[in-house]
């Protein structure tokens, strides 16, 4: 019962993050929603780690956190460069490769 609840919380957090990536236009908020998706995946890893009695899930969570930190550095650098060139962080302003 507790296991099912925690799995459901993780899945729904991931889905709310995906919804945010789909509907928001602000690049910073899209980035925050990606972090939310990673957090939901982390919750699932932790739940499986607990309920199967494996430590590997927590190791995976640590690696995900490291990759998320690297991704934050790159993403914020891209957003800063984008803001400097286009004068805004709405993703509508990215039209270089638009068909």
């Amino acid at each position, binding site marked *: 019962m507790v296991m099912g609840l925690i799995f*459901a919380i993780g899945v*729904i957090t991931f889905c709310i993050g995906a919804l945010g990536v789909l509907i928001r236009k602000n690049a910073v*908020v899209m980035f925050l929603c990606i972090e*939310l998706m990673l957090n939901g995946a982390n919750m699932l890893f*932790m739940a499986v780690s607990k309920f199967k009695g494996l430590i590997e899930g927590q190791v995976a969570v640590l690696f995900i*956190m490291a990759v998320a930190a690297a991704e934050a550095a790159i993403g914020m*650098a891209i957003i800063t460069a984008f803001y400097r060139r286009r004068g805004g962080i709405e993703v509508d302003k990215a039209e270089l490769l638009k068909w």
Partner: protein
Amino acid sequence: MGADVLHIIIAVFLGLLILVSALGVVFLKNPVHSALSLLANLCITAIMYVALLSAPFVAIVQVIVYMGAVVVFVLFVIMLMDIRPADITERFLTPRLFLSLAAVVVFALQMLFVVATVKGGWIPTKYVHAGDLAKLLFTKYALLFELVSVLIFAAAAGAVALAKKRM
């Protein structure tokens, strides 16, 4: 049985807080409010790791890395953007919201169906401390650990190169 009911109550309470703060990230218009809502979400997740999933070390790392580094970093960038209230012109009630919602709900139902088939039992509290993780991290996954350090170094160098004035 009493402890089990207590665990369910804690899970429902923390889950509601997590979902409300996650919705706050998506549906608050000001990016600063979204970032603070994400901060609340990560904090409650860390509490859940300690209270239900018996993982104090990962909870501490979550507080330090996510709440301490990533969210503060994002807040710094938002501060540099200098967003005025007049600049926030986003509206949510568009056809795109409903189409995205349909896609996400279908995905959520599929994933819930998948996780409902996972077998496993409730293991009584057996805390996983830093030593237990280190034994695995520095033997079986030592190469992966070193590769992650190379990745972070490359990401830092790339971030400096990307954010320079002249590209």
